[in-house]
């Protein structure tokens, strides 16, 4: 047992541990008591009580919300489960049971139940890795779109899904969208960012769509923050897209829209609670200084979808794999251009679908892949050289010019914690030596050499992900030791815990489900300079759609698509500041006098 943790600490209630990283906030002092009662000259105080007229405030119970939590392990670890459980399938069910939902009428502009202040419009977004994980668990060559249909039935079908029961039967989700749509926009914005010639962009640009990586960087390596890409993640962008568009077109405030996102990892729950990803960034029509309505209200993981179904006694695996019947489909999306972007009609050309990616893109959205292909199309005849690094999660890419063989662009992929260590070490600025005599040394350089530069790191872009193997191996995915997976792979029986080999085999099955395409999506990954397609995406279409979006919501585009990061400074172990001393004194009887 470590010195900080004792058996007494192990309960399900949050007590800020000794090493809590949340800085102490000073609350504004309470207003003085109304002077209607004559101030008493003398007051009898029992030992241990506070005088009633004292302006001191006994500190309220320490509260840590999910917004503050970075899973830094400063708090008692058993209580982390409590924090994360605030966003769970239970919350989904209790929200559905709290009030009749807002229902959009077929004219797609009128809402029923609008006068009930608790009524909300439910929308959902799903990431493709979740679909792949469930498809692998179901087996029988189930495809992603079939799983998408099953989830749609779960969330919207009034006979078979969640709306069939609960306190308000009929309460269900109106719009269910894949995050692939917003992902296309993130890819285009990301490549514009790294290829921009502006001097504001620090190279190497690092992918920022992985919240595990971002939280770790903010907490432990803040010198890396200027390098992070400012483009939002697909989850965040989908949230902004849905909330801005629906609130504008339907004339409701964003807190009347409840956005659930289904993601392959738990860190996405932390991302959803970020203050930077709320309507306070883009909502110019709100006057009260609220904390901001989140763009994503709740995140659940692949495993929790199954638990959600179970909680209403629905067998997920028996849900239909076909789309909802026309009678149960929601009205068309209130804005046509955005609606076409989010829900491409079946007849849309593959350029507008951009659903499937090739294995070379990886399973985390393919940011790097898209940038490389953009460059390849900009430099006809150039070719791509791939070099594997010290392990499977480190790969280096170079684009070489056809004529001279010179390197036009260097980039890399770094997945996994141990590889991230090596990356951040190379980016660390030199600091003066602690030895007397002050010989400076960088973390990887001999004294005297310039640190932080040099031939060790000349990449322009690095795709960084916290999970080895990419997002299909995320923390919230169905893992190989789950009974469903064991059964699917035939690992059950006398074998004890599946080992690393079995985990790799399972991940291959999930990846296969992730990359496999239906006939309709076959050509989705071509790069064709003639048709303007890059990796199956049409940047011009994306840019047009973004412009429509910005015009329609009357918000400048950079407020919609970019975000910021902040260093987390811990107060642990630091000597008391004056403010803290005052707070502590104020809490004493008599105010310290």
């Amino acid at each position: 047992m470590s010195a900080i943790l004792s058996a007494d600490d192990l309960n399900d209630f949050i007590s800020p541990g000794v090493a809590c990283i949340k800085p102490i906030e000073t609350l504004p002092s309470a207003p003085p008591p109304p002077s209607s009662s004559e101030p008493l000259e003398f007051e009898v105080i029992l030992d241990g009580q506070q005088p009633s007229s004292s302006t001191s405030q006994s500190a309220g119970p320490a509260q840590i919300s999910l917004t503050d939590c970075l899973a830094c392990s400063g708090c008692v670890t058993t209580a982390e489960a409590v924090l994360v459980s605030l966003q769970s399938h239970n919350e989904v069910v209790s929200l559905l049971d709290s009030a009749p939902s807002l229902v959009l009428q077929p004219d797609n502009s009128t809402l029923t139940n609008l006068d009930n202040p608790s009524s909300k419009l439910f929308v959902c977004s799903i990431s493709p890795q979740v679909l792949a994980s469930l498809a692998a668990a179901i087996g029988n060559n189930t495809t992603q779109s079939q799983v998408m249909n099953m989830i749609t039935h779960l969330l919207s079908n009034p006979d078979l899904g969640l709306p069939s029961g609960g306190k308000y039967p009929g309460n269900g989700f109106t719009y269910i969208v894949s995050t692939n749509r917003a992902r296309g926009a993130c890819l285009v914005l990301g490549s514009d960012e790294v290829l921009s010639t502006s001097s504001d962009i620090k190279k190497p640009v690092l992918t920022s769509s992985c919240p595990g990586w971002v939280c770790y960087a903010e907490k432990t390596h803040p010198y890396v923050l200027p390098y992070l890409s400012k483009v939002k993640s697909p989850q965040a962008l989908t949230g902004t897209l849905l909330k801005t568009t629906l609130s504008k077109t339907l004339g409701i405030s964003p807190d009347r829209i409840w956005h659930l996102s289904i993601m392959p990892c738990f860190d996405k729950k932390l991302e959803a609670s970020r203050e930077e990803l709320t309507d306070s960034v883009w909502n110019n029509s709100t006057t009260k200084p609220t904390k901001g309505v989140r763009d994503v209200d709740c995140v659940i993981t692949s495993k929790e979808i199954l638990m959600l179904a179970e909680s209403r006694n629905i067998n997920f695996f028996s849900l239909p794999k076909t789309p909802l019947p026309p009678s149960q489909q929601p009205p068309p999306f209130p804005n046509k251009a955005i609606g076409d972007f989010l829900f491409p009609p079946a007849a849309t050309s593959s350029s507008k679908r951009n659903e499937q990616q090739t294995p070379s893109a990886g399973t985390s959205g393919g940011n790097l892949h898209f940038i490389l292909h953009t460059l390849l199309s900009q430099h006809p005849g150039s070719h791509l050289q791939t070099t594997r690094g010290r392990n499977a999660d480190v790969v280096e890419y170079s684009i070489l010019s056809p004529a001279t063989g010179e390197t036009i662009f260097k980039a890399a992929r770094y997945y996994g914690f141990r590889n991230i260590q090596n990356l951040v070490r190379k980016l660390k600025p030199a600091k003066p030596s602690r030895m007397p005599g002050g010989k400076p040394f960088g973390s990887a350089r001999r004294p005297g050499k310039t640190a932080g530069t040099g031939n060790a790191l000349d990449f322009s872009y690095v795709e960084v992900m916290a999970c080895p193997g990419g997002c299909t191996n995320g923390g919230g995915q169905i893992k190989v030791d789950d009974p469903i997976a064991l059964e699917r792979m035939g690992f059950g029986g006398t074998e004890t815990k599946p080992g690393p080999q079995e985990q790799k085999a399972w991940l291959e099955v999930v990846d296969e489900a992730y990359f496999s395409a239906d006939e309709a999506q076959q050509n989705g990954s071509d790069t064709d300079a003639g048709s303007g397609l890059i990796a199956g995406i049409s940047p011009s279409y994306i840019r047009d759609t973004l412009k429509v979006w910005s015009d329609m919501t009357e918000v400048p585009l950079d407020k919609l698509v970019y975000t910021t990061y902040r260093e987390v400074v811990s107060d642990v172990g630091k000597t008391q500041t004056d403010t803290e001393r005052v707070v502590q004194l104020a809490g004493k009887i008599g105010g310290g006098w």
Partner: protein
Amino acid sequence: MPPISLHPLATFTPDLYTRAWQSTPHPYLPLLATTHDKTVTVFSLVDFSKHSSLTGGHSRSIRSCAWQPSPSSSSSQSNQSKLRLVTGSFDSTAGIWTYNPSAALEKPITTTNKDDDGGGEDEEEWEFTLVLEGHENELKSLSFSPSGQYLATCSRDKSIWIWEHLTGSEDDEEEEEEDWETVAVLNEHDGDVKTVAFAPQFPTEKKHNGRRYGSDVLASGSYDDTVRMWREDQDGEWTCVGVLGGHEGTRKRRRMGGMKRGRGERGIGGIGGRWGGIPNTMRRSLREEWECKGELPKVHTREIYSVAWSGRTGLVATGGGDGMVVVYEEDGETGRWEVKARVEMAHGPYEINHVVWCRRFDKGVMEGREEEMLVTTGDDGVVRAWEVRMGE
């Protein structure tokens, strides 16, 4: 079997004045590094006097240190690669120190320089070249693989990190790039990892179900009452290949002695137990099964802090909170372990933090002979050398 007795041979000078934690002999040079407070003092094994010291690199106490074995692993090659010591500190970092190659290794005894005397001379000898950061909190122990290529560090944060020393060309006299990379972060322990130790050189790699595993074996002991064995597979991934559970009388703290190879077996010293290894090839992934081959008789009255197993003589020594040093030997015929020698109050009333077997380089050794002595490190800040005499 002949009786064994321990006799005080020498006391390393000067006294260190603060609790000393661990003494590590160099693989082949006559040097011993002792950690105490935030410093490491290097002693000469020829005359038991202070050789040099390492100061100023850490902000909290240094608990462990390890010499980097040189790749050519031959005692006469010391000119070619630099002398390196790695320190593990409670400030959560490991420091890499390089000895200034222009200074001679055999120094005459100089008048004692206190550390705060400008420290000019000491600074030139040991250069603090690199900090390995990454662990969240106190570093407990570190160990080099036999070739010096890998360094393992472990910490209260329950993880073990493996670092690789990347060298440019060794022939380049000019600047040897001090480049270390994180190779693995192993999180499978459920508690504070107290100690790590690489096994001494084994010539064989392992093959299992078509996968190859490297010959380096790492053992780690943790507060979760398990000892885990780790190997590197052909993809460069370090995986856990064996778990040794607790045994009767398991205490929460596990300190591991060195790994020893002898008679075709591998073993690890643990508190009150010794384990022999028999690999089991029946599993899909490589899973070695270790079987407890013997237990040391209970002699200590308080916690055992350190275990050392000599690769040369096969003797096991333990030291602990009761201030006793005990030496055990395995009976060749019965396989049972017996107490052969014991010294009480070896450091007076003080606790003994560390014991280690060490080759003798002092003048008492006859020409051409290789003998071993036992070095004990205590809370009294004193490092003592003990001679082992066989027979009466």
